[in-house]
């Protein structure tokens, strides 16, 4: 971000972060629906991470190449998980 150009409403973002954190905690109490609870927990975590990256780290204002630098290792980590997945999960 160019200095002095854009500052989103940081407090509003923080309130959203706290709301998402509360939603994730409430999801742990979900009766009977463990899978749904897990999905909600990780969906809220991903949303929080995106809010921080886009607004506090200003990725939404940065050149696309910076976003690529940030995203490529995430993709590699996912590839690693997918590549390892059959080896451990289906090993008997």
């Amino acid at each position, binding site marked *: *971000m*160019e*200095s*002095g150009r854009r*500052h989103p409403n*940081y*407090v509003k*973002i*923080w309130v959203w*972060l*706290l709301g998402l*954190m509360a939603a*994730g*905690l409430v*999801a*742990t109490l979900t009766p009977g629906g463990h899978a749904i609870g*897990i999905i909600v*927990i*990780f969906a809220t*975590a991903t949303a*929080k*991470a995106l809010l*921080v*990256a886009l607004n*506090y*780290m200003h990725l939404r204002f*940065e*050149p696309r*190449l*910076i976003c690529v*630098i*940030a995203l*490529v*290792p*995430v993709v*590699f*980590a*996912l590839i*690693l*998980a997918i590549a*390892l*997945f059959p*080896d*451990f*999960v289906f*090993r008997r």
Partner: protein
Amino acid sequence: MSTSVEAPAIPGMPAGKVGVWWFLASEIMMFGGLIASYMVFRLGSSGWHEASAHVSVALGAVNTLILLTSSLTVVQAFAAAERENAPALRLFLGLTILGGLGFLGIKAIEYTTEIRAGFTPGAGIFWSFYYTMTGLHALHVLAGIVLNAILFLAARVRTPRRVELAGLYWHFVDVVWIFLFPLLYLS
């Protein structure tokens, strides 16, 4: 003798910021590899939920709250630095440092309680991952505290660029915790 200005790696982007993002990319690979290994191991065997039931969700949630709030204070420090408001810069950097110290204090309480209960790093694979991931993360928090403390002491010289770069690192530490909390405490 010729003088030349170094061309930015990305047009309009200071080289320092590009460097920090490259550094963060390597950090993402390191934590990403750890998290990917944890998930694959966890999906491939049983007994993890029982082990993770012994960590304190309440303390983990308080630490999440602290780190999310410290992300707010460090970005407010950057905004203050841009306005050249040194008192506000010092205030927000100080709050960020306090948040980091609070996080480490709570983590120390957790470790003490868990180790006294017999949950050492050798108590099982969950605990090995738990201490590796949270320990590595705590070291990053410590490094962030040192960075912010240096900026706090130099706050009078008004260096918004440095505050921004240190803030990027602090936010990254926050993002890592955002994923460690559900992985280790909530699932």
